[in-house]
């Protein structure tokens, strides 16, 4: 498999990411490099499976986060509950689910937040059959098709 060149200095895709994958819009690959990058962020989330840890985190979030050797960007994203940013920084949705579950939020609630929709818009999109695949397969094809009208459900 060919390797992705590091083209975007702010957020380079981790080495080893398949090129084809990086053409899929709005999707982050949780591969081994990103998993390594997000190890402590994800292990922090995992710690919230214990009720005592949840209570300690809720009492003082910033202090609790200091117990994990995460980067300042990762801690900041947790405190702001910036879910897309956490994913960019190596978070995985199943680990992040421990964090949003302890906030009392569902997968659907957080999915809506990540898409930038309101809860109502997102719920309605799902009831109408979900986000359409049309126009959502490929970044490059999306660009080339931008001038043409396309049928796609927006969240």
């Amino acid at each position, binding site marked *: 498999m060919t390797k992705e060149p590091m083209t975007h200095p702010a957020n380079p895709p981790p080495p080893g990411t398949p090129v084809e994958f990086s053409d899929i819009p709005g999707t*982050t690959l949780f591969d081994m490099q990103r998993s390594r990058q997000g190890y402590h962020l994800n292990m922090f989330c995992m710690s919230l499976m214990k009720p005592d840890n949840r209570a300690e985190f809720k009492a003082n979030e910033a202090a609790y986060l200091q117990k994990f050797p995460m980067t300042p960007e990762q801690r900041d994203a947790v405190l702001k509950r910036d879910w897309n940013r956490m994913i960019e920084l190596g978070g995985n949705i*199943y680990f992040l689910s421990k964090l949003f579950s302890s906030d009392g939020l569902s*997968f659907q609630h957080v999915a809506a937040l990540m*898409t930038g929709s309101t809860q109502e818009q997102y719920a309605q999109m799902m009831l109408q059959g*979900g986000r359409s695949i049309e126009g959502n397969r490929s970044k490059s094809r999306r660009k080339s098709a931008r001038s043409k009208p396309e049928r796609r459900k927006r969240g």
Partner: protein
Amino acid sequence: MAKIIASVNCSHVPAIGAAIDLGKTQQPYWVPVFRGFEPSKKWIAETRPDVIILVYNDHASAFSLEIIPTFALGCAAEFPPADEGWGPRPVPVVKGYPELACHIAQSVILDEFDLTIVNKMDVDHGLTVPLSLMFGQPKEWPCRVIPLPVNVVQYPPPTGNRCFQFGKAIRRAVESFPEDLRVVIFGTGGMSHQLQGPRAGLINSKFDANFLDRLIRDPVALTRIPFVEYVREAGSEAIELVMWLIARGALDDDVREVYRFYHVPASNTALGHIILENAGKTRAAGKKKSRATRKRRVAR
């Protein structure tokens, strides 16, 4: 001889477990989902498996990032439901089948599948939601369950072909176990869904329908679908569908579709479900075995 007689494939959406546990099954949103499983409950009550081999993925519950087994097999006597951040599901403790599980582990490793053996493990919604869908809310699960977690969370998961071949190795292992047991294999997860990022909510019903059709008639074609195609066409979490290929690999080449159900949405997910029986199986033989099984269960 033990024998795998059928497969049950279904999604394992956590919200379904929550709907059952919180008594929401009669809410209009959930009614079609549970109605869709009524024929399946009847089928499994008639089929009376002695053991279920349940292929699923752990969702950062039993396995963190500390240890990530590609294929693992639960060889313990019991598996408690996991606390996934909102307390354990109020479902019965899962009773394993250590003798058969150990036999399978030995057999598949010698068959060149380098399995991880797990003797202590909590089981999360990936395993308990399919049991709830098929059995409802019993005091005890009506048969033994051997958990078979697969890594599909961190790239790379096993390929579709590897999963299919692994299913065949499991079948060889089961068929070399001397006890007379009826085994049903569950392949769970999927179908199309994406839980992360700006593309969350993606559903591709065409992909799903095609997958279900080919699962019956041409599973080998499905084993050639690369990882990136699952993600592009059916969403980042649709890769769970490779686990359906383990269950399919454990069946005959020729199978009979017993039942199919498909519904959108269940939370963020296209819920898919299909029951397949080996084409050679006859009803009469099934019923006869059932009575013997019942006696054995009482004796335990």
